[in-house]
């Protein structure tokens, strides 16, 4: 395949993915918007007033970046894991496997689809948040870069999960038992400065903490973590997971007998 043909193959996967989650927007876009509205109402307005300030910001302002990031992470991940796993289960992944589309294009196409959904939901949640508070973005480039890289990272993670999953239950194990706890304990609702030194040290092993704080730094200008550390960690994880996903694809693990 020449470059034009490769680009056509990539666009085909990417557009197909966008159409897929757009067609079922009631299942993909609407639920996070409703969930986040409830978070804003309950944690931001009702409980937030009782909590007062955190790191010099109203509580609702403090949690908005974390909630946006949480939506981006879960939606990027779940888009790729559900789409690729379903293609595997129903057999239509064979449409791609018999074609000359290079493995890297297959991976990039699905990741781009995950990023498209993650960022779309992130945008919707951001718009919803504007009904509850103002947003004055301190570092726009850092904000966009962190959210984009995080979305890429979790889309790749979703792809790997889908390759290994053999049942619908297996597909949900990582999101439920690993991703959700890491996200909730990743500083979305609190600053790790509130924790004891021991739990602060433990929290530093949670990669989501770096992403949430990197994003919070971009929007509010405050962070529990050095923003450079956030970038380095996300990039290292992307390189590692991307290489692993390519290894799995090239070997045909979970795809070719």
């Amino acid at each position: 395949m020449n470059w034009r043909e490769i680009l056509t193959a990539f666009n085909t996967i990417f557009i197909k993915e966008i159409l897929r989650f757009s067609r079922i927007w009631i299942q993909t876009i609407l639920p996070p918007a409703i969930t986040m509205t409830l978070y804003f109402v309950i944690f931001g307005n009702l409980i937030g007033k009782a909590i007062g300030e955190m790191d010099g910001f109203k509580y609702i302002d403090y949690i908005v970046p974390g909630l946006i990031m949480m939506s981006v992470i879960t939606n990027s991940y779940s888009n790729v894991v559900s789409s690729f796993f379903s293609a595997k289960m129903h057999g239509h992944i064979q449409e791609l496997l018999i074609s000359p589309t290079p493995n890297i294009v297959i991976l990039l196409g699905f990741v781009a689809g995950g990023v498209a959904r993650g960022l779309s939901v992130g945008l919707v949640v951001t718009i919803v948040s504007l009904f509850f508070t103002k947003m004055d973005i301190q570092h726009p480039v850092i904000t966009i870069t962190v959210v984009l890289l995080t979305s890429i990272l979790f889309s790749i993670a979703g792809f790997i999960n889908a390759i290994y999953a053999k049942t619908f239950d297996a597909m949900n194990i990582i999101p439920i038992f690993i991703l959700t706890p890491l996200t909730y304990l990743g500083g979305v609702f609190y600053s790790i400065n509130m924790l004891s030194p021991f739990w602060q040290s433990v929290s530093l092993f949670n990669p989501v903490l770096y992403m949430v704080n990197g994003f919070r730094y971009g929007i509010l200008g405050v962070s529990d973590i050095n923003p450079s550390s956030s970038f380095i960690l996300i990039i290292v994880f992307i390189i590692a997971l991307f290489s692993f996903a390519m290894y799995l694809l090239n070997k045909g693990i979970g795809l070719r007998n």
Partner: protein
Amino acid sequence: MLKNISNKKINNTTPALKISNLKKVYDNDFVAVKGIDLSVQQGDFFALLGANGAGKSTTIETICSLVNKTAGTIEVFGHNTDTERALTKTFIGLVPQEFNFNIFEPIIEIIVNQGGYYGIKRKEAFRRAEELLKHLDLWDKRKEKALDLSGGMKRRLMIARALIHKPKLLILDEPTAGVDIEIRRTMWKFLSKLNAAGTTIILTTHYLEEAENLCHNIAIMDKGKVIENTSMKQLLSRLQTEMFVLDLENPLSEVPHSDDFIMSLRDANTLEVELDKSRSLNMMFDFFNQNNIRILSMRNKSNRLEELFIELIEKNKEATA
């Protein structure tokens, strides 16, 4: 009818498919294919037959890179599937045994997207999809979800999808399974035209009549081995008898008796005659004249392959016992 893909990097004398010492052992140690050799010439209509579990589908899936082989080499139009995988994939179109499309997608999208995976731009893919869907009587259904199609339509959808990139080698794994006779015959006509236009076709089927009518050459697999690989003509010539179907003017209430050949009634007006190849047809006609049985028409019974198939499988069973 769609013409073939461009003849890039293809020598006319090289086989469309050449398999050497192909082996496949699955993770559970099941040996599905036991070192087979197979060659299919360009332009051939080739039958790959075998009972369930003989190794046909594994062989096909290995050719199409859906299964990793354990050993051996596969060449498609002279190009190695290990070293030139992307190129060999452009030559092959696959119609798999199981329905494997997204049932929630409109059928036009399924075909156009498949074109996209081969690097065909959307506009061109749409044009080709229209041509194929019209040929296969699916154009009116193009906006419907695959879920809503009948079994026969789903089979035709898979054929259209496999042809979107104009493959030079079309592999069909039981394409007419569960399809009614009318649609089956339409599909035979379509595939014959495609073959006449230059596409090499490999067909697996359990309808031996289908293989006998369509295919020029044949390989029979059993328990992971090729137990027969010859031309259809040569294989059928091994039969010691010929089977004829005679349409009679007047109904018969019972089977007439002859010492020279065997007869059976399919129905009151249709008589089947099994005649030894050493006996003349004139002798048979003399018998009917003497018995006042008037024959309106006569044809060869076309599922003779079935007898040979069973015979070969039985022989292999005895040999491996």
